[in-house]
């Protein structure tokens, strides 16, 4: 069985973002970019299934600018077999991403698709569910455990009240949460090897998909800053402040 792992290039999760003063967006120039951390977890899950002999091939794909090849190379260095870049300029909404991915699924015919539960830039948490709906497949979201069986995948989902386990008939979509696994690092020999692995570059037009945004971002701005607080010397002072100044106890 083949597994498709869609990934995204985002500002590295350790970087403190800068909002452009003119309100036009978040500054991406000269900022360290990395693979969305949830997508690394998705790749790790796919690789573990391959190592367990349940999957034959791990294909990774991204829709992004030319430089997104970097994160595809990272995924190949982790151990993915093949990569696809659908090259675009500018922002593509999750709906557009899902439409392109649906076309890739049509071409590649994976047995299932596994991806991050959200990207840490737009925090939309839509792509997996949208892809699932467009394909008419079943879905599991926010996975913290996953077992691939004959004809179905058993997934434990993190839900508001705790954990919920469901079986999803294959082919299926799974979006992954933090606690599914700890992704491996790419070793230097594997980074070198990844340079020779196949990376195909195509455009959305090749699929006849229009990825232009539907919604309009009017302004991007910083949230109001919290006023600085005070350091209290001891528990008595804390209790006094909470009672008399903040009035919360």
């Amino acid at each position, binding site marked *: 069985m083949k597994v498709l792992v869609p990934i995204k290039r985002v500002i590295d999760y350790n970087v403190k973002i800068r909002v452009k003063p003119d309100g036009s967006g978040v500054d991406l120039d000269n900022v360290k970019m990395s693979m969305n951390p949830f997508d690394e977890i998705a790749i790790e899950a796919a690789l573990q299934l391959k190592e367990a002999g349940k999957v034959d091939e791990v294909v990774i794909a991204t829709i992004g600018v030319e430089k997104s090849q970097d994160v595809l190379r990272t995924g190949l260095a982790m151990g993915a077999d093949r990569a696809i870049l659908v090259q675009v300029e500018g922002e593509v909404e*999750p*709906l557009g991403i899902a439409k392109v991915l649906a076309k890739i699924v049509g071409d590649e015919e994976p047995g299932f698709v596994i991806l991050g539960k959200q990207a840490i830039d737009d925090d939309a948490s839509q792509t997996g*569910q949208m892809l699932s709906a467009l394909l008419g497949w079943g*879905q599991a*979201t926010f996975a913290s455990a996953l077992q691939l069986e004959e004809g179905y995948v058993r997934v434990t989902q993190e839900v*508001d009240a705790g954990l919920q386990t469901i079986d999803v008939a294959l082919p299926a979509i799974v979006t992954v949460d933090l606690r599914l696994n700890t992704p491996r690092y790419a070793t230097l020999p594997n980074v070198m090897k990844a340079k020779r692995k196949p990376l195909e570059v195509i455009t959305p037009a090749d699929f006849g998909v229009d990825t232009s945004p539907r919604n309009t*971002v009017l302004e991007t701005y910083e949230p109001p800053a919290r006023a600085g607080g005070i350091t209290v010397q001891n528990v008595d002072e804390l209790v006094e402040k*909470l009672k008399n100044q903040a009035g919360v106890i």
Partner: protein
Amino acid sequence: MTKILLLAEHDNNTLNEATLRAVTAAKQIGDVNILVVGHACDAVAQTASKISGVEKVLLADGVVFVHQLAEPVAALLVELAPAYDVIMSAATSIGKSALPRVAALLDVAQISEIIEVVSPDTFVRPIYAGNALQKVRASEGKKVITVRPTSFEPAPSEGDAPIETLSTNTTNEKTTFVSAALSDGDRVELVSAKTVISGGRAFGSKEQFDQLLEPLAQKLNGAIGASRAAVDAGYAPNEWQVGQTGKVVAPDLYVAIGISGAIQHLAGMKDSKTIVAINSDPDAPINQIADYVLIADLFEAVPELTDKL
């Protein structure tokens, strides 16, 4: 007038407060109908019918909906969508799973987790874990929107809307419920609590986490939260996690104990009204957003605080 269908969040017995908050957002956009999807959930529909400003409650009761899996819930919403301009839900597990399916099937770009309604077609939503805000104008035509509950007050319950029972033939061949491990219903609920006490990895063990935090939480009638590190270390269950992954809370009082304050954690609590940080590190990032910082050994400070309250 804009017609809105709002998916209710419930467990077949109780309507979740998140829905009352989502109604407040929805009323700023147009006329609200509430959809209760589940099984043997009459009581939920009754509660929903009392929410002020709701025009009508639609009740879809069926075995296929008992666990509110995304596929049948989304299919029903799509079936009902032609009569509405906006499909909405609180950004809860069910809303987050089902609504993007609805959006894709309606060919609409969803707007996730709005925190403000600027006008009926323009909304504010956080990006980058709340480190930036985006003002977004939705395209013309149908809209699909999820609401961050903590950003809106709960709508009062002084209404008396009619309940209309739907008959549906929705099926679900794709997903099957296996089991659930859900938290104790007696606890103060994290998202709606007025006070949240959160602990981090500095507690060192699950025993110490429980022994120190339970009495303090009881004294303050608060809910217990946790940092990702504490959940990963097994001190607390996943549903207690506060942050970009996990719950977003905005209580009147948030007490962060032994938590350094990674941006992913701050994303889940920085809209709290009063923030207290208790930890041993004077340079912890959480100190910069806290109103009151106590630099102390938590093993001494927490029992003393519990005592003196």
